[in-house]
């Protein structure tokens, strides 16, 4: 027997309160039918006896205290899964919007997922060659890693993400078992279209699942989008043995949706009004990257977030940085000089890099070269700070060399064309070539054997 509950008790933001509801379970999905014939979905977020609080994904506009009929579905939010999802375009809650008909699921899975047992994880070690010098050499992307791009409005993070998808070569993976899951949260139609076009041009569109919650779509649905996307990714990776690259943009909009939901629920806010559980919530998304023993597939995540006011200490990039395994930080000043990709080298980092490079993976000199480039470039920044006070003319000869090195490094190593695909050998050799502009005694992170081999000063 299906019971329908008529009307609601209270409406507040995206939440409705209902009374006298029996047999409801936590996180259960409810169907809400409006008198005008449309229907919406909601999720039970709090229970007090027979009084329940429901979060309505599509928003509460046009809901009144009396015009709804609500039905319990008896299960939590589930995502229909099938291999046929590849090549489809879905809305933010996983419903098809490409006009290609309904999805006939092979199975359904709870979108919240379950945590991977740390014992079952495989420590990621296989590197992904992106063909981008800065990333390959200094913050190597590893299969199964979560490496976000910290960017700002108006910067070229989308191009960078597209270039990574186009050029990413995973050793051992052919085009057959490579796939992309793209989750758009609160981005504009143009941006989503740009990604779709780019996927099409690089010939991967048939291996892409797109979930779009655009900026004019319901905000609360946005909190579901990454969960649906990752559920699809896990299914493709761990049941169909594919290597999945998940691109999520823009995490800032996601966090803002979460804040809106939290404040309408009357929760005590943490920093900058974001809920106290923002860390746990973001972790429940990012931690779904990885590899599992006994499964050849992998989930690699590249979340993109725009730092409000380019501030890396803002709660969203800050908490993200604590969860993800490194970050690629973009810099507005570099972009202003016309460099692409404008990767700010010093704050960027890949935590998994150290075990995925070197002999047998890339090249034996890789780690030492990377350390030296970081150390030398840090000195460039010091020299520039000094030059801005006393003028470049007054600098000591060695500081002048550093200024020179800095210019070369940015214009030749960091700067690279949108279509330029550099091999790892090319990138490493270029690094050595630039370091050779410095006196040999300054290279204190590299041992003599390597210097004899590679130093050309």
């Amino acid at each position, binding site marked *: 027997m299906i019971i329908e509950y008529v009307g609601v008790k209270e409406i507040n933001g995206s939440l409705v309160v209902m009374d006298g509801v029996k047999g409801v379970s936590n996180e259960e999905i409810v169907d809400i039918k409006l008198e005008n014939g449309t229907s919406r979905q909601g999720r039970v977020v709090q229970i007090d006896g027979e009084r329940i609080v429901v979060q309505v994904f599509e928003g509460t506009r046009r809901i009144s205290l009396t015009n709804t009929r609500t039905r319990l579905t008896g299960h939590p939010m589930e995502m229909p899964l099938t291999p046929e999802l590849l090549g489809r375009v879905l809305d933010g809650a996983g419903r098809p919007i490409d006009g290609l008909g309904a999805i006939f699921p092979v199975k359904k899975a709870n979108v919240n997922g379950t945590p991977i047992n740390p*014992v079952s994880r495989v420590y990621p070690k296989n590197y992904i060659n992106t063909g981008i010098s800065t990333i390959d050499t200094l913050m190597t992307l590893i299969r199964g890693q979560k490496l976000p791009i910290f960017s700002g409005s108006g910067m070229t993070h989308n191009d960078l993400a597209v270039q990574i998808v186009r050029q990413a070569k995973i050793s051992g993976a052919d085009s057959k078992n490579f796939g992309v899951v793209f989750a758009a949260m609160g981005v504009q139609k143009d941006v989503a279209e740009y990604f779709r076009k780019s996927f099409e041009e690089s010939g991967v569109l048939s291996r892409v699942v797109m979930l779009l919650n655009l900026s004019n779509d319901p905000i609360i649905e946005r909190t579901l989008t990454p969960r649906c996307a990752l559920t699809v990714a896990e299914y493709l990776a761990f049941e169909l043995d594919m290597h999945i690259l998940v691109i999520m943009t823009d995490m800032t909009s996601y966090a803002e949706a979460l804040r809106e939901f939290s404040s309408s629920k009357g929760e005590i806010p943490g920093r900058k009004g974001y809920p106290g559980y923002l860390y746990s919530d973001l972790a429940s998304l990012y*931690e779904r990257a990885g590899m599992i023993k006994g499964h050849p597939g992998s989930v690699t995540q590249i979340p993109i977030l725009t730092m409000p006011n380019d501030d890396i200490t803002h709660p969203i990039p800050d908490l993200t*940085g604590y969860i993800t395994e490194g970050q690629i930080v973009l810099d507005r000043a570099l972009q202003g000089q016309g460099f692409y990709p404008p990767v700010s080298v010093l704050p960027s980092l890949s935590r998994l890099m150290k075990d995925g490079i070197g002999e047998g993976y890339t090249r034996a000199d890789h780690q030492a070269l990377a350390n030296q480039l970081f150390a030398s470039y840090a000195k460039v920044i010091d020299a520039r700070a000094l030059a801005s006070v006393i003028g470049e003319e007054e600098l*000591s000869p060695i500081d002048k060399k550093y200024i020179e090195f800095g210019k070369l490094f940015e214009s030749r190593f960091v700067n690279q064309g949108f279509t330029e695909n550099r091999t790892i050998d090319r990138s490493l050799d270029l690094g050595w070539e630039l370091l050779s502009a410095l006196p040999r005694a300054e290279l204190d992170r590299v041992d003599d054997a390597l210097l004899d081999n590679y130093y050309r000063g």
Partner: protein
Amino acid sequence: MNNNVIYGINGPVVTVKNADCFEMMEMVHVGAQNLVGEVIGITDRLTTIQVYEETTGLKPGDPVTGTGAPMNVLLGPGILDNIFDGIERPLKEIEQQAGAFISRGATVSSLDPERLWAVTLKVKPGDRLEGGQIYATLPETPVIEHRVLLRPDLSGVVKEVKPDGEYRLHDVIAVLEDDLGDCHELTLCQQWPIRTARPVQQRLTPSIPLITGQRIMDTLFPIAKGGTAAIPGGFGTGKTMNQHQLAKWCDADIIIYVGCGERGNEMSQVLDEFSELIDPKSNRPMTDRTVLIANTSNMPVAAREASIYTGITLAEYYRDMGYHVAMMADSTSRWAEALREISGRLEEMPAEEGFPAYLPSRLAEFYERGGRADVLCGTEGSVTLIGAVSPQGSDFSEPVTQNTKRFTRVFWALDKALAYARHYPAINWINSYSEYFNDLDPWFRENLGDDFVEFRNRVSALLQEESSLMEIVKLIGSDVLPDDQKLVIETARVLRVGFLQQNAFHAEDTYVPLEKQKRMMQVILYLHTKSKEIVSHGIPISKIIATGLFDKLTKMKYDIPNSRLEMFDDYMKEIDDKLGAILP
């Protein structure tokens, strides 16, 4: 009596209406799947329970059963070389039962009840046993002997004893009659509530250093066995790397590593590395003396809160056997956030930045459980606590860092600028401190000589001087400094790059014995003193730099193997020769 049912659900917090049989902090089972929970609030109307697992799918009306005991852990052989979640459930068994993804309501015993242990009885009938004393021993791993202890609250006379032999965890191996005449069966294990500190005979002053082989930690900011330390740092500054290095190399007998709300891949890295890493002292893998507690950031938040207490209880248990235990908690900020999250669900009035007002007292309670002590079985043991702190926005003025600072005595402050320049360990030598100098001084003087202390003081004075000189250099450049100040900058550079910086991936440099640390300081300071003499004769410093001695000393950490310390004498001689040649 067992008609308590769920009334309300809000995230991990569940309420029960009109129940009067629950105690505060009692462990309960919630719902049909028997999810583990703990009572955290009682009013005459509502009992509040925090659930250690996902609450999706729970319904009002589902049963809630009390266990009559507080949240506790099972202590016994089989803890070492194991990996648990935040409430001591073995993750390997959960994997076998449920596969790669952790399902809810897993009912597995914390320790393997079927495994046989080769037990040696240490008592005979008629012996009197006091709480905390040893009645049997067994080899838990090839390097660690497990000493089976009487529960601290029991004492009495041994009535029966089984012969030596192989026994399982719950087999009765002895019977004890207490002073009231009641008999107690003694097995290989006992329960202990995680939020209660285990008693000791008396606390001792921490006067022995925990030797880590990490130069900046051992010489400039040493920690004592039984001491407490905090490693705060923003993301990417190397908190976890430092914790790993400490776990791998410090000279504690037992390592408890708590991954509290951190990355899953990091835990799998620890698992991989520790099982491959051979302990030089015993030639056995590190895992033989290590316990891992993994409650990653996506595992339930309430269990994250408990994981710190589970860790410290296991640490105290091994301390009570007379071992030196080091516990690494990575990271205590995630634990504090778990407190904040649950406090928020309880609608408590927040103090600073949404953290509950009891945050400082909880932190104090935790760090107070560290220490060196005479334990009940008659020997000495210690628990050293090293907590990583992840300050929001790398801002050390936030509440968790500030309160941790109040209750820990070593502060290894990690610095973003150093990390950006890939200067590791990125411990800032100006902001960090250790309060153990005075306690440890006698030990250093006795074991390494008075000059060790003197060298350390001179090194830290030079670094201080450099830091104030750098203020000037930043404004006007280094060219205008007089030569004796240039020399300070030159020597400090050798100290920074050649001494403080340490390469965790270099076979020789990853662990450096104290003796070598001392000789390194000695040679660098010798060069400094000699050069100062030359500069005072009016000879330009560029001549000294041209000898290449500074560069040579910068690389000596790689050039001199840990086993060939006599090479330092050659270095001293070379300094004499080369500088002697410059002198008029």
